[in-house]
């Protein structure tokens, strides 16, 4: 059964059909939630919330990309989760130092008096990148995740976040600029492929 047929039957109340859509898209939805929230448990909650909300509001789906529609729902669910956690903080999103203070600088990973090679052995690069993403405002995180993780084009992202194309361009550029600054201390950790960039063409 194809996607549109599953959506139609799910809309009629067939939960099995909807669950087949869930299985097809849960990785995409979870990734978006995780990149925006930066925490696995929060991403889990937002993903579940997004699918429940999607099922209950399936009638508002007006065709087009179902993936984009789900990403819009999970992005909003992630914002809601962020607001909830702000009101009732449980686990800090930022790492803590020895005194229990939140560290805002991403250099907590590299600034341990160790050589970069030793850090690279200890810390996965993916975690370092995510820590940098966590430094961004939530709206910037969402755009970076949609473009650079989900691989969407600008017009799709504009539709997902409900903002003009210019806003997408601007947020993405500023987010990448901040990430560039944040990642300055980690270039040595990167695989050689990233250190020897010199191509001009995008």
């Amino acid at each position, binding site marked *: 059964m194809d996607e549109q047929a599953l959506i139609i039957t799910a809309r009629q109340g067939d939960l099995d059909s*909807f669950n087949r859509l869930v299985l097809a898209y849960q990785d995409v939805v979870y990734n978006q939630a995780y990149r925006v929230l930066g925490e696995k448990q929060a991403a889990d909650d937002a993903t579940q919330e997004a699918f429940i*909300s999607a099922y209950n509001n399936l009638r508002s789906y007006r065709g087009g990309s179902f993936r984009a529609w789900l990403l819009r729902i999970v992005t909003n669910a992630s914002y809601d989760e962020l607001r909830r956690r702000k009101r009732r903080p449980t686990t800090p999103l930022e790492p803590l130092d020895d005194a229990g203070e939140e560290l805002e600088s991403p250099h907590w990973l590299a600034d341990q008096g160790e050589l970069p090679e030793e850090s690279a052995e200890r810390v996965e*690069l993916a975690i370092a990148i995510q820590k940098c993403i966590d430094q961004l405002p939530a709206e910037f995180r969402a755009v970076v995740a949609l473009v650079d993780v989900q691989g969407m084009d600008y017009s799709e992202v504009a539709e997902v976040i409900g903002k003009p194309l210019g806003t997408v*361009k601007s947020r993405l*550029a*500023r987010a990448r600029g901040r990430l560039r600054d944040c990642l300055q201390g980690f270039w040595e950790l*990167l695989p050689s492929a990233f250190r020897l960039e010199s191509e*001009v063409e995008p």
Partner: protein
Amino acid sequence: MRIPERDLEAISAYLDGQLTQGERTRLEARLQTDPGLREAYEQLHRTRAVLRSLPVMRAPRNFTLTPQMVKARKSPPPAYPVLRLASVMATLLFVLVMVGDLMTPRGTALAPVLEPQAEEGATLMQAPAETEAPLLESAPAAEPDEESRKTMAEDQAENQTAPPPGMMEMAAPTPEPTEATLLAPPAAAPDLSAEAGGSVSEQREREAARPLPATWNIWRILEVVFALVALATGLAAAFLRRGMPG
């Protein structure tokens, strides 16, 4: 190296192939000649490549829904959209009625309310024998006290069937028609008064004034009705909205 935000945006869009042909050509020319811009381009290119190298995470579990999870949420009650629409419509009608009410000339709208009282006052100021005659003719069974207790609607009906001389005096303040009305025999009073006050402009004034008591009431009644309907349906919709998923 720091570059202006505009250049950063251009490089970022260039990396995603989102520049127009002209913008692309200009940027490429600048990249050839501006080492600072070239450096910024390389840094941003590397940043983008690093971001795109992030592994796709697998969902830690299946997020399939159970009937309990779905039942736990209230589906939107079917009455909700109806109530919401009714509330919006009632509010719009309320605003329209308000605008209509405000655009109605206030002086003429109030005149009919004052009319019966003025009429009675004017009647009292006239010679009793001459003024009572038309009144008795139009409502022979009515006592003067009962007449004063009549409702505004009854007054209006009476005015339409047989306009009393008091009203004629209000509508036609010139002394000549008034005298003609007062001096006329009782049986001929209505006809004469119509003739006496019967210039075209005065008749128009009277005709414009007559339906106003009903109009005045309708404005107020509609305002109250629409306001109450808007409030009631809005509150009901808000009550139903609680518990619905965002």
